[in-house]
């Protein structure tokens, strides 16, 4: 019980995830700044931002559903921490065992932060937030299709939907990424991760220039800090998910694997303009799904 508490609160739980995640957002901001010929923030900037937000006033929109408005960000945060703890804990388990939930469970838990954003935005009684919430929901509809197919490809090849089984298969046969089918599934999943992070080109739910931060327009103070923290934790947890499922799990090479995926995310983010929502739907249901299906067919053919 005590070890569970430790693993949940300190490592690999809340504290670890928060620190690493905030550092990851710093890497993102720094690289982006350098690409735009700016200096960029110092490493502690995300921590300072968070501390400052905690000191700010909490403003609740008039006539909104207050408890839902303030509660929703916490649900997203809890979901992100749970997934992070769960994925990292695979390491501590004997080979082949799985902790708390399997691949399908994690796919559903990963929906919690997005869902929290939608419900919170919807509860803030602001038309712009409502538009942001509806965009986020449509984005979920868009990326779920290729995500399901990519996950099914892995499940098919590993003959297991438990993380323990998936990692064990990769330990025996090499990471999924080093095969054609695995590569296709990984590419589709990488774009899904990009969308789940709400990073450009899929930042339509917040789209500052169009709907003024959309779903989170009414948030301020500690509630906004919780949303920021969730986003930061996802910057660590989602690449971790890709690493476990496609890159052979957590080992000595993990920092390199993680930084590689983070670099890809930042690269995509800085080289693409924001998509319109109907284009995003068409993009995910069209080319990305085709790539994912190609991956599945290759997997059936044994490639």
């Amino acid at each position, binding site marked *: 019980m005590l070890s569970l508490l430790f693993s*949940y*609160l300190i490592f690999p739980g809340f504290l670890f995830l928060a620190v690493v995640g905030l550092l990851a957002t710093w890497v993102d901001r720094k690289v982006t700044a350098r690409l735009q010929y700016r200096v960029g923030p110092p490493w502690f900037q995300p921590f300072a931002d968070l501390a400052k937000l*905690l*000191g*700010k*006033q*909490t*403003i609740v*929109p*008039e*006539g909104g*559903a*207050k408890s*839902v408005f*303030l509660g929703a960000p*916490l*649900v997203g*945060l*809890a979901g992100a*921490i*749970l997934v992070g703890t769960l994925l990292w804990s695979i390491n501590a388990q004997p080979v082949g065992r799985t*902790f*708390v*939930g*399997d*691949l*399908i*469970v994690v796919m*559903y*838990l990963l929906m919690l932060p997005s869902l929290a954003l*939608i*419900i919170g935005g*919807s*509860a803030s*009684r*602001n*038309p*712009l937030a*409502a538009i942001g919430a*509806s965009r986020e*929901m449509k984005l*979920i*509809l868009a990326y*779920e*299709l290729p995500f*399901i*197919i990519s996950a*099914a490809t892995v*499940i098919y090849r590993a003959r*297991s*939907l438990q993380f323990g089984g998936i990692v064990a298969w990769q330990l025996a046969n090499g990471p999924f990424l080093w095969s054609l089918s695995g590569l296709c599934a990984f590419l589709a999943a990488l774009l899904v991760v990009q969308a789940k992070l709400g990073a450009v080109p899929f930042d339509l739910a917040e789209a500052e220039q169009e709907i*003024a931060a959309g779903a989170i327009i*009414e948030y301020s*103070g*500690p*509630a906004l800090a*919780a949303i920021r*923290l969730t986003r930061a934790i996802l910057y660590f947890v989602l690449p971790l998910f890709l690493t476990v499922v496609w890159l052979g799990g957590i080992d000595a090479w993990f920092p390199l694997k993680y930084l590689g995926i983070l670099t890809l995310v930042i690269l995509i983010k800085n080289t693409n303009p924001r998509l319109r*929502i109907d284009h995003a739907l*068409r993009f995910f249901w069209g080319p990305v799904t085709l790539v994912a299906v190609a991956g599945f067919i290759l997997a059936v053919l044994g490639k």
Partner: protein
Amino acid sequence: MPLLAYIIIVPLIAAGLGLIFRRAAGALALAAAFFALVAGCLLMGGRQAWPAFSLLAYSLNSGAYLIAALITLLTVIYSLKYLTQLKRLGEYYAYLLLALAATAGALFTNEFLFLFLFWGLMGLALYLLIGTGGERAPAAAQKTLIILGGSDLLMALGAGLVWSLTGSMEFGGTALPVNTPLTLAAFLLLLTGAFAKAGVMPLHSWIPAAAEGAPTPVMALLPAALDKLVGVYLIARISLDIFMIQPGSLASLILLALGSFTIMAGVLGALLQHDLKKLLSFHAVSQVGYMVVGIGTGLPVGLAGALFHLFNNAIYKSALFFCAGSIEHRTGTTELKKLGGLAGKMPLTFAAALIAALAISGVPPLNGFVSKWLIYQGLIEVGQFDRFWLVWLTAAMLGSAFTLASFVKLLHAAFLGQWSENTAKAREVSWPMWFPPLFLAGLCVVFGLFAYQLPLRYFILPVFIRLVVPGVWDPGLATIMLFGGLLLGLLLYLLGNVRQTVTRPAFYGGEELPEETIKVTGDDFYDTVKRLAPLGLIFRVAERKVFDLYEQLKLALDSLADLASRIEGAIWRSF
């Protein structure tokens, strides 16, 4: 007489008394439904039998009956406040109890002949109950009667075929493999009746029609709960006890294809509805798809998921219909465009609707997630026998995302979002109306957290000799950790100054525009999806009711009649 006899006779007696003493009809119904609930609990003890109607109770049908009795009781409680103005109140309660008694019979009987008797009585009760509704009720009741009556005839034909093949009218006495044209015909004919009652496409269209006409508690009780319980229970028994469904066989393929089609078509229909009750009724169709798919896998884990989903669906769907009724009661409308901002005005109804909506969308750790998760595993396992498993899995999992989408629309349009004229003065309903949905929502949480300890252990697992679950899901630990996360977040809030919240008007561009001019109702959330190329075509076709077998048959009959009258005219002219 054994207990099994009483649970059929007592509601019927109460119904008769209610017709005579109309004033006391509500109280009598309450007493009878309470008796049914207690009897249902007592039945959980073990196997019981009553030879008169060849009734036999075991874990599965006792569990289904327990849920049916519970929802009937809650419906009666709800109706006490909701339906005070209805003229034919005595008849209303009598029909409710008739439905309960018929459900008991249909669930417990072990022989076709009696099954048809009770099955027909259920259809009759439904027809009569829909008829007690408003002005659109007669047309809806007629449509229901024609679809259910017609499919019952086909089912009788199927039962006859089975009898001629095996010489037995009992469940469980046969294990026919579906391999010859004759057995396939018998299988499909038998399924038709069950499909129509459960609402599998293309025999689903009576449910949305009934949603428009029938009083809302009737929708919460019959199409959402009793008809599903009995219909899907029968699909399970047909597939298990009369025929043998092997994974990868033709019968399995038919069930998987029909189920997947029902999931997607139902949920896409729901996505675009403009009316609260109609939206829910399309989900009543879509959710059956999951159960059919689960049964169609022919594997224990898929089947366990399907049966668990059956119980879960009855619970959250009834809760949602109750909430819709409460909204209608307070605002006078169920049109999504005219609602909004009810969360603060009806907090208890909102809490129930939120939990039920998340449960039906399969958000962990609620009950809907556990049953869907079991079904997905069945679909993955069936991949060893069936080449198309990815199609079924994708339909099921994507259908779940679409379900969430349509409930986000519902929650935004009705509860969150901005106020409208209708909702500005709304207030919370009284306890007989908020208690039933809230109780069911609580049950959603309990069935999710203690899935292994309660529903699976007592209702479902006794049916299986051996159940292998290939995945891992530990709801208890996951919930503890989720709560830990909530507490951490709360700590974060307290570290900040969340206690000194201030309230300010929502900010949009710094303008003080009248709220009506820039209201986002949620009604048009998914118009972008609707216009998208291949989907747009499907929606346009669906709007012409091409997928509605009833309307198509009616059209065919109309043109036939037209042709006949023309021929008649031609003959007449030739003289």
